């Protein structure tokens, strides 16, 4: 195959560069603003592209209060426990639903599809969590989100696609369903599991709304909710914090906490990326 002519390649290059810039510049701006000085931030209207002078004051302020490190720890905990739990339950449910003739197959499947179509409102959700006595417990953020019908459907489709001969031969060799799942099905499903795991992890990491509703004690708040109090309430800061000239500028603080909340989940992506295309395609053509 001959390479396309020069102008086409140049054009592609330009388009790709612009696309990359659209993604990279806001990120760079966030990082730069978090490191900039008050004077530069005010001069540049609140958003710095390249800082003249690097200042870590905003990060120091964030990490001395004790609130942010704690919130990051809470988020990590919720994400790890939640993702593990979600993957386990989703796998078991999807495996059961992918075997023909499993117990209450149709009603359970209908239930899952129903959950896909109808989401509960705030108040019913709150009342359920409150009745179960989960208010102010980390479980209130994990359990309501533990099983996602969407992910169950994707995973079930993938499991059903595994050649029946493999399962049958295992059964002839004397393997039970537990062994078939752990020895045959799961090793073949690494791609889809990592994608679903990532979906869950991102969901738990970004959860602020359930935390807002169910966690009254601010000490238990995850990073995203703490982040929100930094970013959304901005117009009120002036009223509450009179005479704070010595402190890092508000924009730097906001951007710094944004960086803190983005980085951990960003670090996970490279490890899962190789599975990503394959895993996502499963959902695209099946289901």
């Amino acid at each position, binding site marked *: 195959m001959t390479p396309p002519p020069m102008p086409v390649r140049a054009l592609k290059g330009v388009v790709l560069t612009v696309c990359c810039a659209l993604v990279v510049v806001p990120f760079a701006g966030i990082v730069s603003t978090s490191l900039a000085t*008050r*004077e530069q931030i*005010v*001069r540049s*209207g*609140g*958003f710095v592209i390249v800082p003249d002078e690097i200042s870590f004051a905003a990060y120091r302020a964030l990490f*001395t*209060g004790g*609130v942010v490190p*704690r919130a990051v720890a809470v988020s990590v905990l919720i994400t790890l426990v939640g993702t593990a739990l979600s993957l386990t339950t989703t796998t078991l449910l999807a495996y059961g639903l992918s075997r023909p003739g499993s117990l209450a197959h149709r009603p359970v499947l209908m239930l899952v599809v129903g959950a*896909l179509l109808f*989401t*509960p*409102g*705030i*108040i019913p*959700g*709150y*009342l359920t969590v*409150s009745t179960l006595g989960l*208010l102010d417990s980390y479980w209130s953020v994990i359990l*309501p989100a533990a099983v*996602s*019908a969407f992910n169950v459907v994707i995973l079930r489709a993938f499991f059903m696609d595994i050649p029946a001969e493999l399962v049958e031969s295992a059964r002839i060799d004397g393997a039970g369903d537990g062994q078939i799942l752990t020895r045959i099905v799961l090793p073949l499903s690494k791609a889809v599991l990592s994608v679903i795991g990532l*979906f869950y992890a991102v*969901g738990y990491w*970004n*959860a602020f*709304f359930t935390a*807002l*509703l169910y966690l*009254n*004690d*601010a*000490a238990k*708040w995850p990073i995203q*909710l*703490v982040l*929100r*109090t*930094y970013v*959304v*309430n*901005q*117009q*009120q*800061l*002036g*009223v*509450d*914090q*009179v*005479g*704070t*000239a*010595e*402190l890092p500028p508000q*924009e730097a*603080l906001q951007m710094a906490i944004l960086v803190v909340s983005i980085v951990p989940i960003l670090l996970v992506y490279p490890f899962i990326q190789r599975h990503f295309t394959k895993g996502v395609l499963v959902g695209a053509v099946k289901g």
Partner: protein
Amino acid sequence: MSYPHASVSRRTLLSGAAALAGGALLAGCGGDERPNDNSAEANQAVPLPAYVPSTVVKPDLPGSANGLLDAFLAYPSPPVKQFTGPPMSGGTVSAFVLTGSPVPPPKGSNPFWQELDRQLGVDLQLTITPSAEMATKFSTLVTGDDLPDLIVPALFLPNGVPAGIGNLPQWMATKCTDLTPHLAGDAVKEYPNLAAIPTAAWRQCVYNGGIYGVPVPRGVAGTLMFRRDDLVETLGVNPNPASFAEFREFCRAVTDAKANRWAIVNAGGLMFLVQQMLGGPNGWRWDGGTLTHQVESEEFKAALSDTVAMFREGVVHPDSFATNAPVKRWFNAGEAVLIADRYTAWPQFYAENIAGPAFRISGMRPPKYDGGGWAATWQSSAGSINNFTVFKKAETGRIKDLLKLCDYLAAPFGTAEWLFRRYGQEGVHYTMRNGGPVYTQAGVSQTALGIRYIVDAPDTIFIPGLPDATRASYQYQKDVIDTSVPDPVVANGLFSDEWSRKQPVLGQIVLNGQNDIIAGRQPLSHLDEVIRNWRSQGGDQVRKEFTEQLQKLGGR
């Protein structure tokens, strides 16, 4: 994605939540000992707490009964110690409060909170809610029915915007304490600091024919047009235009796009000022028979027409229609000479300025449109309060204890209690500089508990460490306060259920229409359609509810 709540619009859910909560509230009203009557007559008849102004400290610049706030050039030194012991003796008090600040460290790692507990003599449990999420959190709180002792209802956010909860008075009648027996008339004198809260603030706590809360008072001065005096002086322009024509000239003269400088940060500020020049209604106009909303008035249309013309001339900052435009930064950076903001923003502008000691701001008074003196300014759309706090139903002894706690939390400016409550402990949370406290990093994060939204002392004008700025702020308020006009609906303490729910939506209709016209996406005639929408989507219903009450009040 399938994560719960992530894909559903919050607003949709919210309206459902409010409706549900409302239904539940109404159902709970039957069988109450007293019928719930939130009529204007019942509320007008409520005996309000006696007003006994505090004599603890003498202000450097005195306030007035019309709403001019006391001003202080420096924090009294040494501060007066008002309480000899804690107001309560043990136990737990829970409160639902809002905050506009980053969330504070939890009690275990928050020495300020621990000391506050010691000072109050109680274990203070706070459910701190970011102000942007107040409405959502409040509706779940109401639904769950597991109420704390003290609750800031999401009726007023700090900017005076009702948050969209229906049937609030009915809910208060069933679940909250009528404080009238404890506070009406001379009864309030048992709590001297509550007695020092001005009557106008108490009036806004009246519902269902009773006093249902304690107020967080604020000055009625509201929003003003801040002007960069230092810049105007350098430019050699007359800072006080005497008519609309001169104001327009002023804006042209200070604008220099090449120098990255415009007259004003946004067109909304122009609308605000020009309507005042024209004598337009503040919110609503009641002429004794008919109630007209601002957007329906002739003045609004005229102001809009002028604003469109001025926007075309390029005197408005070109990026002002961007979401969350950093308008305060533009003002501080000198990219704009004028900005409309609340009087409480005064200290912030000084705190964040980068112009150095030359930085100087003051308030620009609107002249009458055709000249011949000053026009009347508008009072705050939230009246005399920021918000109020209701008490969960409890036995009398408990209520008295909670009122004692509130009495402590309302200790006036100049006391050691005020300084501690607001700034914490000297050396740890703040340092004194030039007569004013300056937060340390620990102070900023630890003191942001939101307790100032439970109850507060009367507001004062005090820009820490900058007596000249304090003088300027006081002088502006003194100049405008006597002629300033209130929103008749707020001043008469009226409640409309439709208004409390629909105000955000109706406000958005007006704002979108106004912006479309100013930005040139729609002609001025589009305003008629905006008004039609506003009326049909709730405006007429609100008018009906308010008009009935105003007529019964005798059409003041």
